[in-house]
């Protein structure tokens, strides 16, 4: 039995690995034994084409499913924390075969509370052994369950929580530092529009653009370290909230600023890697024949102006070169009647 949320990329990775590299070896020694895929998000096309795979999908309660199967495979290839599915299986007396990474954090001991194997051959051997060896199965079922129920008993958690809160009581809270600013929120001071832009649904895209713009301007001002951090913040959205295809396709204008900034930061390798990935997900991205899009400069606010005072104003001379020597003009209408903004706009023109 394999249990997962199939919307989780880590789960897809591990079952792919198992089906491609381990399952053929298991089939050789245990022909006709099936893998049961259990859990939410099992798309119809997932694992299509594999023989001896039974697609169960979401089940409202797990006890019935655990009772049917001889083992839980958990070939975890990346992750940290505690793997809840392993805990649940062991608590139901179902032996588990996992990897060193899967066993992390739970104190599982090989051959005592679980079987642990990393290489495909070792993993396949473990599956074959456990499937065929009644004595080993009983020993692991009992050992795993006893280990988990002891380690994860309610009393343990209650005691540790009490100790942690006692510890907190004894601490003197750290003092507020008015100078502290979270890197992820710097752009809210640079570009307040990210909090107020209308319609609000566009704020995520605007935020990504703001990170890229902040990185560009910080790089130009010589603050390479913070510029790199701002660039990285874009990827905190990708791919979980913004698909890569979207970043390199619909939001290519942002990707373009980022690529340029990598080069400004003299990160040739980073820029090349970035381009390679962009082309992978949006084949038209960064082609030599592709005319780069022209991004509008975000309007500086009075606050950002005073902060950036002394920094060189952004130059918009690229457009003239791209347009065969003809200048592009922007007409800026100060909708808030801000005289400082108007002054800055006219100065930029």
């Amino acid at each position, binding site marked *: 039995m394999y249990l997962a949320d199939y919307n989780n990329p880590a789960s897809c990775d591990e079952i792919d690995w198992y089906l491609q590299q381990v399952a053929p070896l298991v089939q050789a020694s245990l022909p006709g034994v099936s893998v049961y895929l259990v859990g939410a998000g099992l798309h*119809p*096309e997932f694992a299509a084409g594999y023989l001896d795979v039974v697609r169960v999908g979401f089940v409202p309660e797990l006890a019935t499913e655990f*009772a049917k199967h001889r083992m839980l495979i958990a070939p975890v290839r990346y992750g940290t924390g505690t793997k809840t599915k392993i805990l649940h299986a062991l*608590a139901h007396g179902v032996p588990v075969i996992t990897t060193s990474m899967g066993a992390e954090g739970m104190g599982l001991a090989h051959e005592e509370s679980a079987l642990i194997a990393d290489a495909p051959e070792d993993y396949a051997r473990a599956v074959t052994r456990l499937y065929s060896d009644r004595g080993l199965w009983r020993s692991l079922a009992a050992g795993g*369950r006893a280990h988990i*129920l002891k380690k994860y008993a309610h009393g*343990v958690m209650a005691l540790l929580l009490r100790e942690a809160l006692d510890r907190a009581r004894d601490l003197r809270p750290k003092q*507020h530092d008015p100078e502290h600013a979270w890197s992820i929120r710097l752009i809210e001071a640079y570009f307040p529009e990210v909090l107020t832009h*209308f319609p609000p649904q566009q704020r995520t895209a605007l935020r990504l653009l703001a990170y890229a713009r902040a990185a560009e301007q910080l790089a130009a001002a010589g603050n390479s370290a913070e510029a790199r951090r701002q660039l990285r913040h874009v990827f905190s959205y*990708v791919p979980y909230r913004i698909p890569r295809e979207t970043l390199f396709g619909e939001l290519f204008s942002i990707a373009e600023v980022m690529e340029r900034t990598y080069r400004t930061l003299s990160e040739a390798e980073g820029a090349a890697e970035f381009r390679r990935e962009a082309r992978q997900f949006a084949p038209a991205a960064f082609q030599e024949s592709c005319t780069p899009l022209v991004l509008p400069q975000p309007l500086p606010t009075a606050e950002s102006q005073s902060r950036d005072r002394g920094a060189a104003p952004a130059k918009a001379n690229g457009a003239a070169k791209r347009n065969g020597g003809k200048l592009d003009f922007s007409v800026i209408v100060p909708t808030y009647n801000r005289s400082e903004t108007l002054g800055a706009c006219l100065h930029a023109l």
Partner: protein
Amino acid sequence: MSRTEKLPLKAIFIAPGLSRVKRGYERFVLELAAELRRAGMDATCWGTSEAPGVEAIAIPGRDELQMLAFERLRADQRFASLAPNVLQDWAMYAEDQLFAIPVAARIADLLRQKERLLVYAKWQGGLVDASGAPTQLLKILASAILEGKASLVVHTDFVHPSIDSILWRAGATFHALGPWISEQLAQLGAGREGILEFPMCIDASAYKNCRRLREQMRRELSIPENAFVILSVRSFDTTTPDKRHAQLLGEISALPAADKVWWVVAGSRGPAPAAWELTARDALGSRFVPLPNVSFERMPGLYGMADLFALASIDETFGLVYLEAQIAALPAVIHESPVSRYLCSALAADIRKLSLVDMRRPGCAAGAIDRWLHLLSKRAGADSVNLALNQFALEQERRFGWAIVGPQYAAAFQDLTKAAPQQHTRTPAAREFGTWDEQTHRQGVRLFEGGKFREALLHFGRALGRRENSERWNDWATAQMALTNISEAEQGFRRAMALDPRSAQAAANLGALLSASDRPAEAIPLLVQTLSGVDAAEQASISKLLADCRAKQDAIAPPTDQQMSSYLRSLAGLEFYEAIRFQEHLPYYLAVIKSIPRSSPGQRLLGVGSDPRVLASAFARWKGYDHICWRAENRGARHTDGSAPAALRLDRFNLEQAWPYEDCSFDLVFIGGAIETLSRDPMHVIAEANRVRKVGGRLLLTAPNLDGGQAVHAILHGKSPYVRGRFSSDSHNSAHSHEYTPAEIESLAVAGGFSAIRIDTRDIYWRAPGKVSPALAASGYPVGMRGDTILLLARKESPVRERYPAKLYDLPALPPAAQDEIAPATMVSTSVAHAAKEHSETRRPLRVLAVHENLPRPDQSGADFRLLQTIRELRAQGHSVTYLAARGFEEERYTPALIELGVDVYTNDADVLRREGIEIIPQWTLQELLREGQFDVAIFFLWFWMSVSIPEHHLDEVRRLWPRTRIIVQTDDCHGLRELRGANLTGAWSDRERAQDYREREGEILRAADLALAISEDDRKRLLENSPDSEICLLPMVVEPGPTGPDFGAREG
């Protein structure tokens, strides 16, 4: 007239948003223009940018203008109770004002060229400006109409009296989409000659044979042939609750046969909000199929492959999507409204009953879908239903298909141009639609009928603010009832009756409300009064209510006010001062006596407060108490003339010290005129009241209301709200030390181990000035609980829960161990801490603030399961917990689990949500929570699912606003390491960068916290590698043993 003949008429369709052909109106306009062209007319569409069939008129600065308008509307207190999406819609009209300028110029130019024009528009299309005044465009058209050179047809899917009044006077013809619109316009005074009633139409040919696409489309979407597919549409264009995605998801998940059901949600805009999509996927797995960016051309295929159409929206102005489903002969489950009733009028009655449900009521949709599932699973049933639906589809095609109705439109538009100019008959005096407040009130009524209760309430309130009358209060209270604000509703009905004591409607409503609130004695006279003033149909239901109330009423008839007053007067002393005092307090005595529950034989009562002789005698006589102890005040000697009941015993004791009674010795404690005089520790009185009372016994507590209408009126005029209990020159009265609001009194009682049976306020001493309630209602503030005296009846449930509730007591901060010697948290050694612990006083429970991105959803993920475990354990160890979920939209079903644990829950953090692209009106602020909660500890749960994590949001603010709070960050993962391990497998640049981003932010957060909690020892070590100076404790999960199942041989793979 033949179709090929060119008519000397130019039709211009004004629709600013026409480039974004996404909404029904825009599509309708394009199709109508095409129909008119087919009929030989010269029809042109003017939009904001290029699109097929659209002539573009560009608008510079469109987005900026919308933003400005939105900000203005949001800052306007009058609209504070409106949802942001409503304000956004209004702000969109700002674009239309700009659009109207070049349009007006073009229209004027065409008129100069002697073109005969027919202009079709929505009023928002630049005819009326934001202040409600006619624009230049409308003025040009009005002149042209007057001269017979132009006609103006206004698309009317909703009636706005003030605006329609202007349009009417300008000579416009209303295109009413159905009889419900025509009737409203006629009621407003619009003549039938000015109303063109035609439905919106669709191209039926695309839908009527779409069933043949079933197999192909199912293959394309990988949906099994035997699956039961529910289709919903228009579901991705907003994240606000209006479209009610979660409602329908919950209903589908609740189906007995949910595992057979697939749910396809097709939206014309971008992807669904990720959180919602994840929720749906978790609930339905691969059987949830979201389809964003679906073109209109693809829709017939989707209808073709579906088995049922379902839409939870309660807010469709016409419902073209209903029509599409109907012409596709698809069974449907939709909200019952005037629109859907109209569209389903030709549907067989039994099928209509299955199709139209009240989507606001949980379980209705699930019930209807289940019945459809059942019906369609039987061959005979399915055949007869399909036959009926096919017949209905043909009928709908006849009523709403362009092929039939299109030529009728063309003919009607042509007739308009032949009609004589009507402007002369439309004088303002003849066609005045009413005063501003009348229009506003009527608008509220329509909104109410359309199920928009909050918006209706706003309109009723605004009308009341201008002028109050019984009808308006009755409607305002009815809207409050619909929103289940019972106390507000009661006050509103009472105000309606005060203004018109003969109002049968208000009496009936108030009677029904009191009956439902289990207050039969109060309901009966109102219901009796109602009987003669309502029609026969209502009489039957009132009679039934009356019978129910009489059955519930005490067997012994309660004494009347007059009987009680006479008796009480006989007890009062004759001395001048006493007589005056008696007269002043008589209404209070009556209210208290009525609120005291009747005694069973042998029950004991303790009275704390003044006037033992009067009240104790009344309690003995009218409520049957024969063992009464009463705390005697020093001046109590005056009540010893022998008229007190024999069962009364007076005891002298200090309220703020231990009371001289055994535990659990009374069935009822009455505290009146006492708690507001206490200067140090009011909870001591509540705690003692708890101690001396039996479990299940009652508490009746009365106190002046600091939030009463009189107090509000006083404070608004710069006077003290302490309108009672002033200092006394002869030391006869005790000055009030602290007055309370009803909410404070209730929270005192709850902290004291009681639960409120009823909390109420009465105007006993003064009547609040009449202006107060309408002014409050107009501004959206509550009007209930504004009487000058609070009466709380509560039941003892437990020992004292919280001796010093943070909302009432300024509590000392937790002293850190060895505070003077040790500065930074990380330098406290275990031995020092231990020694400090040894010497500390009793470890009192902590006040904990827990902050997470969501409410705990234990059925959704292991992480949420653990989250709930943590909260549960905090409560089990006696700590008070306030839980703050940054978002709670569509997750309301998870709140009760926390409330049952005794957790205070706050959801929807406006400051967090605006970063996620969701604007809401703030209901609370972090500053308020911190001040009220005085938290010892804040636990921030660390995830990176939102733009800015919870610690990055709140940590600095908590440090700044409430420096005494210890900040703990709980993390169930090493987020940076997890992502790095994934990146090592994929080799992707973006994955590596994200891993590094998480790692850096994780380190920054751990360094800023006072303490962190890791889920495993391995995680703890790795987190320390990232932030070596941090203090990190271990907090594992709890695993419950499950059934072990059969032995080895009985298991498969």
